[in-house]
Protein backbone atom coordinates (compact mmCIF):
# COMPACT_ATOMS: atom_id res chain seq x y z
CA UNK A 1 0.00 0.00 0.00
CA UNK A 2 1.39 3.40 -0.92
CA UNK A 3 2.10 6.16 1.62
CA UNK A 4 -0.67 8.25 0.15
CA UNK A 5 -3.35 5.61 0.56
CA UNK A 6 -2.14 4.88 4.11
CA UNK A 7 -2.43 8.57 4.96
CA UNK A 8 -5.87 8.86 3.37
CA UNK A 9 -7.05 5.84 5.35
CA UNK A 10 -6.02 7.60 8.54
CA UNK A 11 -7.69 10.87 7.57
CA UNK A 12 -10.88 9.48 6.00
CA UNK A 13 -13.83 9.74 8.30
CA UNK A 14 -15.99 12.40 9.89
CA UNK A 15 -15.08 15.55 11.74
CA UNK A 16 -17.66 17.00 14.15
CA UNK A 17 -17.13 20.66 15.00
CA UNK A 18 -18.26 22.08 18.33
CA UNK A 19 -18.56 25.66 19.48
CA UNK A 20 -18.81 24.90 23.18
CA UNK A 21 -16.47 23.21 25.61
CA UNK A 22 -19.22 21.44 27.59
CA UNK A 23 -20.71 19.99 24.39
CA UNK A 24 -17.30 18.60 23.46
CA UNK A 25 -16.84 17.11 26.92
CA UNK A 26 -20.31 15.54 26.73
CA UNK A 27 -19.47 13.99 23.36
CA UNK A 28 -16.16 12.68 24.73
CA UNK A 29 -17.93 11.04 27.68
CA UNK A 30 -20.42 9.33 25.37
CA UNK A 31 -17.63 8.16 23.08
CA UNK A 32 -15.76 6.62 26.03
CA UNK A 33 -18.92 4.64 26.89
CA UNK A 34 -19.10 3.31 23.28
CA UNK A 35 -15.39 3.08 22.66
CA UNK A 36 -15.55 0.05 20.38
CA UNK A 37 -17.43 2.10 17.75
CA UNK A 38 -15.03 5.06 17.92
CA UNK A 39 -11.67 3.36 17.49
CA UNK A 40 -8.87 5.84 16.80
CA UNK A 41 -10.93 8.95 17.49
CA UNK A 42 -9.14 12.26 18.13
CA UNK A 43 -10.28 15.38 19.95
CA UNK A 44 -9.01 18.81 18.90
CA UNK A 45 -9.00 21.90 21.08
CA UNK A 46 -7.75 25.47 20.54
CA UNK A 47 -6.22 25.49 24.02
CA UNK A 48 -5.60 23.28 27.04
CA UNK A 49 -8.86 23.42 28.96
CA UNK A 50 -8.62 21.41 32.14
CA UNK A 51 -11.89 19.65 31.43
CA UNK A 52 -10.27 18.11 28.36
CA UNK A 53 -6.88 17.50 29.96
CA UNK A 54 -8.56 15.62 32.83
CA UNK A 55 -10.31 13.37 30.32
CA UNK A 56 -7.03 12.89 28.43
CA UNK A 57 -5.41 11.85 31.71
CA UNK A 58 -8.03 9.11 32.05
CA UNK A 59 -7.68 8.09 28.39
CA UNK A 60 -3.89 8.14 28.06
CA UNK A 61 -2.80 7.85 31.69
CA UNK A 62 -0.33 10.21 33.40
CA UNK A 63 1.99 11.92 30.93
CA UNK A 64 5.25 10.06 30.42
CA UNK A 65 7.04 13.38 29.93
CA UNK A 66 7.97 13.19 33.62
CA UNK A 67 10.39 10.32 32.97
CA UNK A 68 12.18 12.36 30.32
CA UNK A 69 12.53 15.20 32.83
CA UNK A 70 13.82 12.87 35.54
CA UNK A 71 16.39 11.16 33.32
CA UNK A 72 17.55 14.52 31.89
CA UNK A 73 17.88 16.11 35.31
CA UNK A 74 19.76 13.15 36.82
CA UNK A 75 22.12 13.04 33.83
CA UNK A 76 22.71 16.76 34.31
CA UNK A 77 23.68 16.28 37.95
CA UNK A 78 26.04 13.44 37.04
CA UNK A 79 27.70 15.38 34.21
CA UNK A 80 27.81 18.58 36.27
CA UNK A 81 29.91 16.91 38.97
CA UNK A 82 31.89 14.62 36.67
CA UNK A 83 33.09 17.35 34.30
CA UNK A 84 35.08 19.48 36.80
CA UNK A 85 36.26 16.41 38.71
CA UNK A 86 37.62 14.75 35.57
CA UNK A 87 39.27 17.98 34.44
CA UNK A 88 40.79 18.31 37.92
CA UNK A 89 42.07 14.75 37.58
CA UNK A 90 43.54 15.58 34.18
CA UNK A 91 45.41 18.63 35.47
CA UNK A 92 44.80 19.86 39.01
CA UNK A 93 44.87 23.63 39.36
CA UNK A 94 45.76 24.69 42.89
CA UNK A 95 44.69 28.29 43.40
CA UNK A 96 45.28 30.04 46.71
CA UNK A 97 46.39 26.76 48.30
CA UNK A 98 42.98 25.16 47.69
CA UNK A 99 43.22 21.55 46.64
CA UNK A 100 41.47 20.57 43.45
CA UNK A 101 39.33 17.47 43.11
CA UNK A 102 37.01 15.88 45.62
CA UNK A 103 37.82 18.54 48.27
CA UNK A 104 36.32 21.23 46.05
CA UNK A 105 32.96 19.51 45.72
CA UNK A 106 30.98 22.41 47.29
CA UNK A 107 32.07 24.64 44.40
CA UNK A 108 30.94 22.01 41.91
CA UNK A 109 27.38 21.97 43.27
CA UNK A 110 26.82 24.97 40.96
CA UNK A 111 27.64 22.88 37.88
CA UNK A 112 25.56 19.97 39.12
CA UNK A 113 22.59 22.29 39.67
CA UNK A 114 22.91 24.23 36.42
CA UNK A 115 23.32 21.15 34.26
CA UNK A 116 20.43 19.47 36.08
CA UNK A 117 18.20 22.35 35.03
CA UNK A 118 19.65 22.56 31.53
CA UNK A 119 19.48 18.88 30.62
CA UNK A 120 16.21 18.46 32.52
CA UNK A 121 14.66 21.25 30.43
CA UNK A 122 16.05 19.91 27.15
CA UNK A 123 14.83 16.40 27.98
CA UNK A 124 11.40 17.78 28.93
CA UNK A 125 11.10 19.46 25.55
CA UNK A 126 12.20 16.24 23.87
CA UNK A 127 9.54 14.40 25.88
CA UNK A 128 6.83 16.89 24.90
CA UNK A 129 7.74 16.49 21.26
CA UNK A 130 8.10 12.71 21.24
CA UNK A 131 4.95 12.02 23.28
CA UNK A 132 2.96 14.61 21.29
CA UNK A 133 4.12 12.94 18.03
CA UNK A 134 5.77 16.10 16.71
CA UNK A 135 7.57 17.31 14.62
CA UNK A 136 5.22 15.80 12.09
CA UNK A 137 5.66 17.06 8.51
CA UNK A 138 2.62 15.00 7.41
CA UNK A 139 0.27 16.41 10.03
CA UNK A 140 -3.21 16.61 8.54
CA UNK A 141 -5.01 19.87 9.26
CA UNK A 142 -8.70 19.01 9.16
CA UNK A 143 -10.05 22.50 9.73
CA UNK A 144 -8.43 25.93 10.15
CA UNK A 145 -10.74 26.91 13.01
CA UNK A 146 -9.48 24.09 15.26
CA UNK A 147 -6.55 26.25 16.36
CA UNK A 148 -8.80 29.29 16.72
CA UNK A 149 -12.08 28.95 18.61
CA UNK A 150 -13.62 25.62 17.57
CA UNK A 151 -13.38 22.15 19.09
CA UNK A 152 -13.36 19.06 16.91
CA UNK A 153 -13.82 15.32 17.19
CA UNK A 154 -12.53 13.19 14.33
CA UNK A 155 -13.69 9.60 13.94
CA UNK A 156 -11.88 7.59 11.25
CA UNK A 157 -13.51 5.15 8.87
CA UNK A 158 -17.14 6.22 9.23
CA UNK A 159 -19.48 8.44 7.22
CA UNK A 160 -22.19 11.03 7.89
CA UNK A 161 -24.93 8.45 7.91
CA UNK A 162 -23.34 6.30 10.57
CA UNK A 163 -24.48 5.78 14.17
CA UNK A 164 -21.32 7.51 15.32
CA UNK A 165 -22.24 10.65 13.36
CA UNK A 166 -25.68 10.74 14.96
CA UNK A 167 -24.19 10.49 18.45
CA UNK A 168 -21.79 13.35 17.73
CA UNK A 169 -24.65 15.49 16.42
CA UNK A 170 -26.78 14.77 19.46
CA UNK A 171 -24.12 16.46 21.58
CA UNK A 172 -24.45 19.76 19.77
CA UNK A 173 -22.05 19.54 16.83
CA UNK A 174 -22.38 22.73 14.78
CA UNK A 175 -21.10 21.02 11.66
CA UNK A 176 -20.29 17.53 10.49
CA UNK A 177 -17.73 17.15 7.71
CA UNK A 178 -16.71 14.05 5.80
CA UNK A 179 -12.94 14.11 5.44
CA UNK A 180 -10.95 12.65 2.59
Amino acid at each position, binding site marked *: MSDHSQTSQKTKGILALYKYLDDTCGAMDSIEKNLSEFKGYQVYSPTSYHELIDRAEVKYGPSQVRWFTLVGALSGIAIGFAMPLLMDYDWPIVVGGKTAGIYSLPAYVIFGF*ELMVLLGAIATIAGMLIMGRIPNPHAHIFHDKLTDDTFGIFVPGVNKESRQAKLLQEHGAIDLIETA
Partner: protein
Amino acid sequence: MSDVVWKKDVSDVNDGILVGLRAPHPSFYLALSVSVFCLIIGAVAWGYQIAVGTGVAGLNSPVYWGVYITDFVFWVGIGHAGTLISAILFLFRAKWRNSINRSAEAMTVFAVITAGLFPLIHVGRVWYAAYWMLPLPNTNNLWVNFRSPLMWDVFAISTYLTVSLLFWYMGLVPDLASMRDRVKGFKRLLFGFMSFGWVGTVRQWHHYEAGYGFLAALATPLVLSVHSIVSWDFAMSMQPGWHTTIFPPYFVAGAILSGCAMVYTLVLPLRHMFRMEGFILDEHLEALIKLTLLTSTIVAYAYAVEFLIAWYSGNPYEWKIFVKRAVGDYSFYFWTMVFCNCVFPIAFWSKRIRNSKFWCFVICVLVNVGMWFERYNIIISSLVEDFVPGSWGHYEPSIVEMAITLGSFGWFFTWLLIFCRFFPLVSMSELKLIMPKPLNPTKRKA
Protein backbone atom coordinates in the same frame (compact mmCIF):
# COMPACT_ATOMS: atom_id res chain seq x y z
CA MET B 1 -8.24 39.09 39.31
CA SER B 2 -11.68 37.58 39.85
CA ASP B 3 -13.36 40.92 39.20
CA VAL B 4 -11.91 41.26 35.68
CA VAL B 5 -14.62 42.11 33.16
CA TRP B 6 -13.80 40.94 29.64
CA LYS B 7 -15.37 42.82 26.76
CA LYS B 8 -14.05 40.20 24.33
CA ASP B 9 -14.49 36.46 24.22
CA VAL B 10 -12.46 33.50 23.06
CA SER B 11 -13.61 33.94 19.44
CA ASP B 12 -12.07 37.43 19.33
CA VAL B 13 -8.59 36.37 20.46
CA ASN B 14 -6.95 35.17 17.24
CA ASP B 15 -8.65 37.81 15.08
CA GLY B 16 -7.88 40.67 17.44
CA ILE B 17 -4.26 39.78 18.10
CA LEU B 18 -3.22 38.77 14.60
CA VAL B 19 -4.94 41.72 12.93
CA GLY B 20 -2.88 44.03 15.16
CA LEU B 21 0.26 42.44 13.67
CA ARG B 22 -0.69 43.41 10.12
CA ALA B 23 -0.77 47.14 10.66
CA PRO B 24 0.94 48.42 13.79
CA HIS B 25 0.52 52.01 14.89
CA PRO B 26 2.98 54.43 13.15
CA SER B 27 4.71 54.97 16.50
CA PHE B 28 6.08 51.43 16.08
CA TYR B 29 8.18 52.52 13.12
CA LEU B 30 9.40 55.58 15.01
CA ALA B 31 10.45 53.39 17.95
CA LEU B 32 12.18 50.94 15.60
CA SER B 33 14.06 53.76 13.85
CA VAL B 34 15.30 55.19 17.14
CA SER B 35 16.37 51.71 18.29
CA VAL B 36 18.28 51.00 15.09
CA PHE B 37 19.96 54.42 15.32
CA CYS B 38 21.11 53.67 18.89
CA LEU B 39 22.26 50.21 17.79
CA ILE B 40 24.39 51.73 15.02
CA ILE B 41 26.02 54.13 17.50
CA GLY B 42 26.86 51.19 19.76
CA ALA B 43 28.17 49.06 16.90
CA VAL B 44 30.44 51.87 15.69
CA ALA B 45 31.75 52.40 19.24
CA TRP B 46 32.45 48.69 19.69
CA GLY B 47 34.16 48.54 16.30
CA TYR B 48 36.31 51.51 17.34
CA GLN B 49 37.22 49.78 20.60
CA ILE B 50 38.19 46.58 18.79
CA ALA B 51 40.28 48.53 16.26
CA VAL B 52 42.06 50.78 18.75
CA GLY B 53 42.03 48.64 21.91
CA THR B 54 40.35 48.64 25.31
CA GLY B 55 42.34 51.74 26.25
CA VAL B 56 39.49 53.77 24.76
CA ALA B 57 37.30 52.61 27.65
CA GLY B 58 37.68 54.41 30.96
CA LEU B 59 38.99 51.24 32.64
CA ASN B 60 42.26 51.69 34.52
CA SER B 61 43.82 50.72 37.83
CA PRO B 62 42.11 50.17 40.25
CA VAL B 63 38.80 49.98 38.34
CA TYR B 64 38.87 47.20 35.76
CA TRP B 65 35.17 46.45 36.05
CA GLY B 66 33.31 49.55 34.96
CA VAL B 67 30.29 50.30 32.87
CA TYR B 68 30.54 47.05 30.88
CA ILE B 69 30.05 44.86 33.95
CA THR B 70 27.40 47.29 35.19
CA ASP B 71 25.57 46.78 31.90
CA PHE B 72 26.03 43.01 32.11
CA VAL B 73 24.48 42.80 35.59
CA PHE B 74 21.73 45.26 34.60
CA TRP B 75 20.66 43.25 31.55
CA VAL B 76 20.79 39.91 33.34
CA GLY B 77 18.59 41.47 36.01
CA ILE B 78 16.11 42.74 33.43
CA GLY B 79 15.72 39.20 32.20
CA HIS B 80 14.53 37.93 35.56
CA ALA B 81 10.97 39.20 35.47
CA GLY B 82 10.29 37.20 32.32
CA THR B 83 11.02 33.88 33.97
CA LEU B 84 9.36 34.98 37.19
CA ILE B 85 6.19 35.80 35.30
CA SER B 86 6.27 32.76 33.04
CA ALA B 87 7.41 30.15 35.57
CA ILE B 88 6.80 31.20 39.16
CA LEU B 89 3.47 32.93 38.53
CA PHE B 90 2.44 29.92 36.42
CA LEU B 91 3.03 27.60 39.38
CA PHE B 92 1.12 30.00 41.64
CA ARG B 93 -1.74 30.01 39.09
CA ALA B 94 -1.72 33.83 38.85
CA LYS B 95 -4.09 34.24 35.91
CA TRP B 96 -3.06 37.79 35.03
CA ARG B 97 0.35 36.56 33.88
CA ASN B 98 -1.27 34.93 30.82
CA SER B 99 -1.71 38.26 29.05
CA ILE B 100 1.85 39.51 29.55
CA ASN B 101 3.96 36.36 29.79
CA ARG B 102 4.85 36.31 26.07
CA SER B 103 6.23 39.86 26.06
CA ALA B 104 8.00 39.20 29.38
CA GLU B 105 9.59 36.00 28.01
CA ALA B 106 10.69 37.78 24.83
CA MET B 107 12.16 40.50 27.01
CA THR B 108 14.07 37.86 28.99
CA VAL B 109 15.54 36.22 25.93
CA PHE B 110 16.69 39.48 24.34
CA ALA B 111 17.91 40.92 27.66
CA VAL B 112 20.05 37.85 28.40
CA ILE B 113 21.44 37.90 24.84
CA THR B 114 22.27 41.58 25.37
CA ALA B 115 23.91 40.78 28.70
CA GLY B 116 25.95 38.04 27.02
CA LEU B 117 27.53 40.63 24.73
CA PHE B 118 29.16 42.52 27.59
CA PRO B 119 31.73 39.93 28.70
CA LEU B 120 32.73 39.80 25.01
CA ILE B 121 32.94 43.58 24.84
CA HIS B 122 34.78 43.71 28.16
CA VAL B 123 37.55 41.25 27.28
CA GLY B 124 38.61 43.38 24.33
CA ARG B 125 40.01 40.72 22.02
CA VAL B 126 36.70 39.09 21.40
CA TRP B 127 38.17 36.39 19.16
CA TYR B 128 39.90 34.84 22.22
CA ALA B 129 36.76 34.98 24.36
CA ALA B 130 35.94 31.28 23.96
CA TYR B 131 39.21 30.33 25.71
CA TRP B 132 38.37 32.51 28.69
CA MET B 133 34.70 31.67 29.00
CA LEU B 134 34.20 28.08 27.98
CA PRO B 135 35.65 24.98 29.63
CA LEU B 136 38.36 24.65 26.99
CA PRO B 137 42.02 24.07 27.79
CA ASN B 138 44.30 27.02 27.03
CA THR B 139 47.56 26.91 25.08
CA ASN B 140 49.30 25.34 28.10
CA ASN B 141 46.59 22.66 28.25
CA LEU B 142 45.29 24.05 31.55
CA TRP B 143 41.57 23.74 32.15
CA VAL B 144 39.54 26.65 33.45
CA ASN B 145 39.27 27.17 37.21
CA PHE B 146 35.97 25.63 38.24
CA ARG B 147 36.19 27.22 41.68
CA SER B 148 35.96 30.69 40.17
CA PRO B 149 32.56 32.42 40.41
CA LEU B 150 33.19 33.74 36.88
CA MET B 151 33.05 30.17 35.56
CA TRP B 152 29.92 29.53 37.64
CA ASP B 153 28.44 32.58 35.96
CA VAL B 154 29.20 31.28 32.47
CA PHE B 155 27.22 28.12 33.24
CA ALA B 156 24.43 30.00 35.01
CA ILE B 157 23.89 32.52 32.22
CA SER B 158 24.14 30.03 29.37
CA THR B 159 21.71 27.68 31.15
CA TYR B 160 19.38 30.59 31.81
CA LEU B 161 19.45 31.69 28.17
CA THR B 162 18.86 28.17 26.86
CA VAL B 163 16.02 27.37 29.27
CA SER B 164 14.37 30.77 28.67
CA LEU B 165 14.60 30.22 24.91
CA LEU B 166 13.05 26.74 25.17
CA PHE B 167 10.29 27.97 27.46
CA TRP B 168 9.53 30.88 25.18
CA TYR B 169 9.54 28.83 22.00
CA MET B 170 7.39 26.02 23.38
CA GLY B 171 4.84 28.66 24.41
CA LEU B 172 4.91 29.95 20.83
CA VAL B 173 4.26 26.59 19.14
CA PRO B 174 0.41 26.52 19.46
CA ASP B 175 0.27 30.18 18.38
CA LEU B 176 2.45 29.49 15.36
CA ALA B 177 0.00 26.72 14.42
CA SER B 178 -2.85 29.25 14.71
CA MET B 179 -0.94 31.61 12.41
CA ARG B 180 -0.29 28.76 9.95
CA ASP B 181 -4.00 28.04 9.75
CA ARG B 182 -4.83 31.63 8.74
CA VAL B 183 -2.41 32.04 5.84
CA LYS B 184 -1.69 30.41 2.50
CA GLY B 185 1.31 29.57 0.33
CA PHE B 186 4.87 29.97 1.53
CA LYS B 187 3.85 31.55 4.83
CA ARG B 188 1.73 28.51 5.64
CA LEU B 189 4.69 26.25 4.90
CA LEU B 190 6.99 28.39 7.04
CA PHE B 191 4.64 28.59 10.03
CA GLY B 192 3.89 24.87 9.62
CA PHE B 193 7.62 24.15 9.85
CA MET B 194 8.03 26.46 12.85
CA SER B 195 5.06 24.94 14.69
CA PHE B 196 6.41 21.38 14.15
CA GLY B 197 3.07 20.33 12.63
CA TRP B 198 1.14 21.06 15.81
CA VAL B 199 -2.57 20.29 15.34
CA GLY B 200 -3.89 20.71 18.90
CA THR B 201 -5.09 17.20 19.67
CA VAL B 202 -6.01 16.60 23.29
CA ARG B 203 -3.17 14.09 23.40
CA GLN B 204 -0.72 16.86 22.39
CA TRP B 205 -2.17 19.27 24.93
CA HIS B 206 -1.97 16.60 27.64
CA HIS B 207 1.80 16.14 27.21
CA TYR B 208 2.30 19.83 26.51
CA GLU B 209 0.70 20.83 29.81
CA ALA B 210 2.70 18.25 31.74
CA GLY B 211 5.95 19.38 30.11
CA TYR B 212 5.13 23.06 30.60
CA GLY B 213 4.63 22.41 34.32
CA PHE B 214 7.98 20.61 34.58
CA LEU B 215 9.71 23.41 32.68
CA ALA B 216 8.18 25.93 35.09
CA ALA B 217 9.32 23.84 38.06
CA LEU B 218 12.87 23.68 36.66
CA ALA B 219 12.94 27.38 35.76
CA THR B 220 11.74 28.52 39.20
CA PRO B 221 14.95 27.73 41.13
CA LEU B 222 16.84 29.01 38.09
CA VAL B 223 15.32 32.48 38.55
CA LEU B 224 16.62 32.57 42.10
CA SER B 225 19.97 30.96 41.34
CA VAL B 226 21.11 32.99 38.33
CA HIS B 227 21.32 36.37 39.99
CA SER B 228 22.60 34.74 43.17
CA ILE B 229 25.49 33.41 41.10
CA VAL B 230 25.95 36.81 39.43
CA SER B 231 26.14 38.33 42.91
CA TRP B 232 28.88 35.83 43.84
CA ASP B 233 31.03 37.40 41.12
CA PHE B 234 31.28 40.17 43.70
CA ALA B 235 30.53 38.58 47.06
CA MET B 236 33.15 35.80 46.73
CA SER B 237 35.92 38.40 46.53
CA MET B 238 37.40 40.17 49.56
CA GLN B 239 36.61 43.65 48.26
CA PRO B 240 35.04 45.95 50.92
CA GLY B 241 31.38 46.54 50.10
CA TRP B 242 31.09 43.29 48.19
CA HIS B 243 31.99 40.51 50.63
CA THR B 244 28.59 40.12 52.27
CA THR B 245 26.15 37.23 52.57
CA ILE B 246 23.15 39.44 51.79
CA PHE B 247 24.22 39.81 48.17
CA PRO B 248 22.33 36.85 46.64
CA PRO B 249 18.82 37.70 47.94
CA TYR B 250 19.54 41.40 47.48
CA PHE B 251 20.53 40.87 43.85
CA VAL B 252 17.56 38.61 43.14
CA ALA B 253 15.07 41.13 44.59
CA GLY B 254 16.73 43.93 42.61
CA ALA B 255 16.64 41.87 39.42
CA ILE B 256 12.95 41.14 39.77
CA LEU B 257 12.24 44.80 40.55
CA SER B 258 14.07 45.99 37.45
CA GLY B 259 12.48 43.26 35.34
CA CYS B 260 8.94 44.08 36.44
CA ALA B 261 9.53 47.77 35.81
CA MET B 262 10.95 46.98 32.37
CA VAL B 263 7.97 44.75 31.50
CA TYR B 264 5.64 47.65 32.29
CA THR B 265 7.86 50.08 30.36
CA LEU B 266 7.64 47.77 27.33
CA VAL B 267 4.10 46.45 27.53
CA LEU B 268 2.37 49.81 27.87
CA PRO B 269 3.60 51.27 24.55
CA LEU B 270 3.48 47.89 22.77
CA ARG B 271 -0.13 47.45 23.86
CA HIS B 272 -0.90 50.73 22.12
CA MET B 273 1.21 50.03 19.02
CA PHE B 274 -0.43 46.66 18.37
CA ARG B 275 -3.91 47.61 19.62
CA MET B 276 -3.98 45.06 22.43
CA GLU B 277 -6.02 47.11 24.90
CA GLY B 278 -8.80 44.52 24.77
CA PHE B 279 -6.44 41.69 25.73
CA ILE B 280 -3.89 43.24 28.08
CA LEU B 281 -6.32 44.79 30.51
CA ASP B 282 -5.71 47.61 32.95
CA GLU B 283 -6.21 45.12 35.78
CA HIS B 284 -3.26 43.06 34.49
CA LEU B 285 -1.03 46.12 34.38
CA GLU B 286 -2.09 47.05 37.90
CA ALA B 287 -1.16 43.57 39.12
CA LEU B 288 2.28 44.09 37.58
CA ILE B 289 2.62 47.40 39.41
CA LYS B 290 1.73 45.69 42.69
CA LEU B 291 4.53 43.18 42.06
CA THR B 292 6.89 46.09 41.36
CA LEU B 293 5.85 47.70 44.65
CA LEU B 294 6.46 44.46 46.55
CA THR B 295 9.95 43.99 45.13
CA SER B 296 10.75 47.68 45.64
CA THR B 297 9.93 47.25 49.33
CA ILE B 298 12.19 44.19 49.56
CA VAL B 299 15.00 46.11 47.83
CA ALA B 300 14.60 49.06 50.24
CA TYR B 301 14.82 46.64 53.15
CA ALA B 302 17.94 45.06 51.62
CA TYR B 303 19.60 48.50 51.27
CA ALA B 304 18.91 49.21 54.94
CA VAL B 305 20.11 45.80 56.13
CA GLU B 306 23.27 46.14 54.05
CA PHE B 307 24.12 49.35 55.91
CA LEU B 308 23.27 47.73 59.25
CA ILE B 309 25.54 44.75 58.53
CA ALA B 310 28.39 47.06 57.44
CA TRP B 311 28.10 49.01 60.70
CA TYR B 312 27.56 45.98 62.95
CA SER B 313 30.44 44.02 61.38
CA GLY B 314 32.96 46.33 63.06
CA ASN B 315 35.07 46.21 59.90
CA PRO B 316 36.31 49.80 59.37
CA TYR B 317 36.96 49.28 55.64
CA GLU B 318 33.47 47.96 55.08
CA TRP B 319 31.81 50.76 57.04
CA LYS B 320 33.94 53.44 55.39
CA ILE B 321 32.87 52.28 51.93
CA PHE B 322 29.21 52.54 52.90
CA VAL B 323 29.63 56.00 54.41
CA LYS B 324 31.48 57.13 51.30
CA ARG B 325 28.73 55.73 49.08
CA ALA B 326 26.26 58.04 50.85
CA VAL B 327 28.37 61.19 51.21
CA GLY B 328 31.51 60.70 49.08
CA ASP B 329 32.45 61.39 45.45
CA TYR B 330 29.89 58.92 44.12
CA SER B 331 26.97 59.97 46.33
CA PHE B 332 24.99 61.18 43.30
CA TYR B 333 24.74 57.59 42.08
CA PHE B 334 23.81 56.33 45.52
CA TRP B 335 20.98 58.81 46.08
CA THR B 336 19.69 58.38 42.52
CA MET B 337 19.49 54.66 43.29
CA VAL B 338 17.73 55.19 46.62
CA PHE B 339 15.18 57.65 45.28
CA CYS B 340 14.42 55.76 42.08
CA ASN B 341 14.21 52.29 43.61
CA CYS B 342 12.80 52.94 47.07
CA VAL B 343 11.22 56.39 47.31
CA PHE B 344 9.37 56.96 44.02
CA PRO B 345 7.71 53.51 44.00
CA ILE B 346 6.09 54.37 47.34
CA ALA B 347 3.58 56.28 45.20
CA PHE B 348 2.30 52.88 44.03
CA TRP B 349 0.56 52.45 47.37
CA SER B 350 -2.03 54.86 45.97
CA LYS B 351 -4.63 53.14 43.77
CA ARG B 352 -5.04 56.40 41.85
CA ILE B 353 -1.35 56.33 40.87
CA ARG B 354 -1.50 52.59 40.09
CA ASN B 355 -4.31 53.29 37.67
CA SER B 356 -2.57 56.28 36.09
CA LYS B 357 -0.63 54.90 33.16
CA PHE B 358 1.39 58.07 32.80
CA TRP B 359 2.70 58.04 36.37
CA CYS B 360 3.22 54.29 36.39
CA PHE B 361 5.25 54.55 33.19
CA VAL B 362 7.34 57.45 34.51
CA ILE B 363 8.06 55.70 37.81
CA CYS B 364 8.91 52.41 36.05
CA VAL B 365 11.38 54.23 33.79
CA LEU B 366 12.89 55.83 36.90
CA VAL B 367 13.16 52.39 38.54
CA ASN B 368 15.10 51.18 35.50
CA VAL B 369 17.41 54.18 35.78
CA GLY B 370 17.77 53.52 39.51
CA MET B 371 18.60 49.86 39.00
CA TRP B 372 21.34 50.72 36.51
CA PHE B 373 22.78 53.17 39.03
CA GLU B 374 22.53 50.53 41.76
CA ARG B 375 24.89 48.25 39.84
CA TYR B 376 27.16 51.18 38.98
CA ASN B 377 27.22 52.21 42.63
CA ILE B 378 28.05 48.70 43.86
CA ILE B 379 30.81 48.12 41.33
CA ILE B 380 32.54 51.47 41.14
CA SER B 381 32.40 52.68 44.75
CA SER B 382 33.93 49.42 46.00
CA LEU B 383 36.63 49.20 43.36
CA VAL B 384 37.95 52.75 43.63
CA GLU B 385 38.96 52.29 47.28
CA ASP B 386 40.14 48.95 48.62
CA PHE B 387 42.36 48.11 51.62
CA VAL B 388 45.47 49.92 50.34
CA PRO B 389 45.12 53.72 50.18
CA GLY B 390 48.08 53.90 47.79
CA SER B 391 46.08 52.11 45.13
CA TRP B 392 42.97 54.23 45.39
CA GLY B 393 41.79 55.91 42.22
CA HIS B 394 38.86 57.42 40.38
CA TYR B 395 36.64 56.25 37.56
CA GLU B 396 34.50 58.02 35.01
CA PRO B 397 33.02 56.18 32.05
CA SER B 398 34.44 57.16 28.66
CA ILE B 399 32.33 58.25 25.71
CA VAL B 400 32.94 54.85 24.08
CA GLU B 401 31.53 53.02 27.11
CA MET B 402 28.48 55.24 27.16
CA ALA B 403 27.96 54.80 23.40
CA ILE B 404 28.16 51.01 23.77
CA THR B 405 25.67 51.18 26.66
CA LEU B 406 23.31 53.20 24.46
CA GLY B 407 23.90 50.67 21.70
CA SER B 408 22.90 47.84 24.03
CA PHE B 409 19.50 49.49 24.51
CA GLY B 410 19.25 49.87 20.74
CA TRP B 411 20.18 46.21 20.23
CA PHE B 412 17.63 45.04 22.82
CA PHE B 413 14.75 47.18 21.58
CA THR B 414 15.45 46.44 17.90
CA TRP B 415 15.16 42.68 18.41
CA LEU B 416 12.14 43.03 20.67
CA LEU B 417 10.30 45.26 18.21
CA ILE B 418 11.12 42.97 15.28
CA PHE B 419 9.77 40.04 17.26
CA CYS B 420 6.57 41.91 18.12
CA ARG B 421 6.10 42.86 14.48
CA PHE B 422 5.99 39.26 13.26
CA PHE B 423 4.83 37.20 16.23
CA PRO B 424 1.91 37.61 18.64
CA LEU B 425 2.77 39.80 21.59
CA VAL B 426 0.17 37.98 23.69
CA SER B 427 0.06 34.21 24.01
CA MET B 428 -3.23 33.47 22.26
CA SER B 429 -3.62 29.93 23.54
CA GLU B 430 -2.92 30.95 27.15
CA LEU B 431 -5.07 34.06 27.00
CA LYS B 432 -8.08 31.91 26.09
CA LEU B 433 -7.64 30.08 29.38
CA ILE B 434 -8.28 33.18 31.51
CA MET B 435 -11.26 34.37 29.49
CA PRO B 436 -14.77 33.09 30.19
CA LYS B 437 -15.02 29.49 28.98
CA PRO B 438 -17.09 28.90 25.84
CA LEU B 439 -20.00 27.08 27.50
CA ASN B 440 -23.34 26.31 25.91
CA PRO B 441 -25.78 29.05 27.15
CA THR B 442 -28.82 26.78 26.78
CA LYS B 443 -27.25 24.18 29.07
CA ARG B 444 -26.25 26.82 31.59
CA LYS B 445 -29.84 28.06 31.81
CA ALA B 446 -31.03 24.52 32.34
